[in-house]
């Protein structure tokens, strides 16, 4: 397991999104040291309410760390939060932004 995006959504929950390829992202180490070095670029600390998330990022609702993928995230994707070991599903929140829900 490397990228936190473990399984891409295969259902067309958002037709406009599904019709175009996913954006790719180059990730750099952000100084997040709470996971082994090879995984560090996939996470960063959340900087509080004003912190803007990129299309490849989602906040873990359990431990408040920002999870980062090399690919754009979309509703229905399954992601893994290594700092708190939670399995999450990406959803579109009421405000239109991407959120993660815990999959128990």
């Amino acid at each position, binding site marked *: 397991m490397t990228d936190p995006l473990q399984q891409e959504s295969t259902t067309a929950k958002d037709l406009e999104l599904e019709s175009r390829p996913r954006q790719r992202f180059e990730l750099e180490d952000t100084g997040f*040291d*709470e*996971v*082994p*070095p090879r995984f560090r670029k996939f996470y960063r600390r959340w900087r*509080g*309410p*004003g912190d803007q998330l990129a299309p490849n990022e989602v906040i873990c*609702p*359990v*431990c408040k*760390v920002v999870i980062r993928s090399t690919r754009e995230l979309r509703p229905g994707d399954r992601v893994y*939060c*290594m*700092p*708190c*070991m*939670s*399995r999450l599903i990406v959803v579109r929140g009421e405000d239109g932004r991407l959120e993660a*829900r*815990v999959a*128990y």
Partner: protein
Amino acid sequence: MADFLTAYSIQNWLESCPQGYLMGTVYGHRPEDEEPAPLLENEVLREEAIRTTVQLVVGERCALAASSGLINAAPDEASKRFLATQTLDEARHVEIFTQRLLDLGVPKKDLESTIQHFANPNLVKFAEVLLEKVDKKDFVAGVVGQNIVLEGMAFSVFEMLHAVSEPTNPKFARMLSGTIADERRHVGFGENRIGSLIKQYPERKADVEKLQKEMSYWMLATFADAFRNNPARAEFKRIEGELSRAGVHAEWQGVDLLTKDPEEMEQILADTVLKEFKTRLSRIGIEYQTPDRP
């Protein structure tokens, strides 16, 4: 066994924690870091730092007793192994915060009497409520009390202390950031393990909700003592004014803590913790119970 349990391995813990963010630290901080001289030289501030650190020791001793006590009550091997790593995390927290008491000038021979003198009785009650469940080997209630209520509270308290310490005390801030990293795993285990167990045992919900309400009350009473009845509030106000004028800020939850009165800080902390409880509990199918306000 649910697949998510496979992540709870000693190997995973070794790579993340002792071989990761704790590498090169001494009692949780960089070897060269020391308590700042203005803190050690100001008797009011030093005593207040001792009082605060004693509450951390009391809370972590409770967490150590709870996590070790829950190992034999855990229904599966992966949970036992996770709780073994958590036990070592909590023992480390007890050790580093106890070492801080020594660093703040508490003589070794007076350690226990100092802890007894400053320990908040409401925090002691909070711990007793949890440890009663652990003593009965009640795994579901014990994990909710320990990994969701206690750890949820600790997570927010440590974040708040970290926000205030980062610009003023790098040694304490580093100790707290390592502890916060540990707490992420602990709250993650609490939510994920209980989230699946509560589906298996829905009849346990009422008991767990009662526990949350009772522990939340003692937590709020502890906050009230710490902020409202704090004997150092005048000195804090003076120091915060000095720091603000020097352009120092301590941002947490979208506010600058250095500009807030103790009552406002208590409100921000209590609201943050209770909101988190509510959100976490509702995610795992438990209805949050509003505690009485002390």
